[in-house]
């Protein structure tokens, strides 16, 4: 296992960081949450990007804003990697166009998981929602757990493995099934 500092990974996969923040922003806009400040990308050792938004009025909105990047990054990763799959998998041809698509797609896919801060925000809203007898909020608990586990496992390249899974394995399976 090669330990590479997180900020270097963020620089190498910067499209994923930008799309991650766009994922938060998109759901803020869709759910009419005021956005106070956005940093799409910065050269920072701890935080490559963030979205600072105003108070959220419902658990559903909090859930969507928190897991927005997971939805957006995963779908975009799949969309971008799909056209690269056939030349690589079927013809064994590593052409430049496919490699460019794979880098872009996997970079975006590996930043799909929400941060621990996103998980903490979601947990706080889930607790309030449960206290207000919104029992659907219990669904957030395993999601929060998964986010924490995914962030923990990022030291063993779990985020990169997820990008590989979505960007390379899933398109291969889709092609194989056609």
């Amino acid at each position, binding site marked *: 296992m090669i330990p590479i500092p997180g900020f270097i990974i963020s620089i190498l996969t910067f*499209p994923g960081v*930008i799309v991650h923040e*766009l994922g938060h*922003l998109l759901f*803020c*806009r869709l759910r*009419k949450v*005021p*956005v*106070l400040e*956005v940093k*799409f990308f910065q050269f920072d050792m701890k935080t490559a990007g963030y979205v600072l*938004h*105003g*108070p959220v009025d419902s658990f559903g909105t909090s859930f969507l804003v928190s897991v927005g990047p997971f939805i957006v990054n995963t779908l975009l990763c799949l*969309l*971008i990697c799909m*056209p*690269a799959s*056939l*030349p690589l998998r*079927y*013809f064994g*041809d590593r*052409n430049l*166009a*496919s490699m*460019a*698509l794979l880098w*872009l797609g996997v970079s975006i896919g590996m930043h799909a998981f929400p941060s621990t801060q996103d998980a903490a925000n979601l947990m706080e809203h889930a607790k309030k929602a449960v206290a207000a007898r919104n029992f659907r909020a219990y669904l957030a608990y395993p999601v929060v757990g998964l986010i924490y586990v995914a962030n923990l496992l990022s030291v063993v390249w779990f985020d990169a493995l997820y990008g590989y899974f979505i960007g390379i394995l899933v398109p291969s399976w889709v092609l194989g099934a056609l």
Partner: protein
Amino acid sequence: MRSITCSRCGAVAPRGESLEYRGSDYCGRCGDDLRGEADEGPEAFHPLVDPTVCAFCGADGGDSEHAAAAGLPACPACAERLYRAPLPRWVRGFLAAVAAVLVVCTALNLPYYRAWLSIRRAGPALAAGEHERAAAFMGAASAALPDNRELEGVAALYAGLSLAAKGEEREALARFRTYLSLNPADQAARFQALSLESAVAFEDGDYRTFYRLQTEILAGDPADPMRRLAKASAAACLWAAYGEAERRAEAEATVAAVLAGLPAGDREAAAAAGEYARRIRFRIDTREIIDRDEYYRRHPEEASK
């Protein structure tokens, strides 16, 4: 803008620059003094909000209050900015670049998809015996990816099969040779190429090459009755063309042995071998070398057997 009267100094101060402490309002200066004197922490002092002044840009609404955004009064322009959260120009440029990379790279990869679709159509066409259609599809696949040598080989094989099915052995042989130059280990294709080469040699009247090639083909499966008869046919050609009595004896002995050795009950094999044997015997008896079509043109009564 709204104002308060300071509970300590009595001065009139803007509400947005004042604070509340223990239920009373104080101007900014007295508030700072109180912070230094009080035992409580900063959480006991609450900044006052003026709902007529925008908390983000300071725009004064006069007597009318601004709507709240993010829990703070915001003028319409700031509220619009907060809720719309416009993307910076460079982020819009980034998104345009991502879209451009996706479109351009997908367009560059389109030939792979065209080739893939053609390959997918070629297989079923070949399985259905539509050799010409299969060859056309595989040719289109190869044309889509001209640098792909493997695909070029398969396209040549399909074209060879199609031409062989149409009886164009010479052209088919050329395609098989192209395929074999790229796939030298394919024994089935090698056998097909030998068969075509022998057919071309027969067509050219080169009976010594015809005999040599049939000997080579038989070596691949010496027990196969049809291969043995094909070699007998070539031996009969040498007798007919050059009067080589040794080859006549070989042809007669082989035909007799094959017919005697056919498994009992296999009527189909017996019919095929019998038909071939009659043509070989015709060649031995008349010393005339004619192809199958000409033989049945002359003996239409045998075509129905």
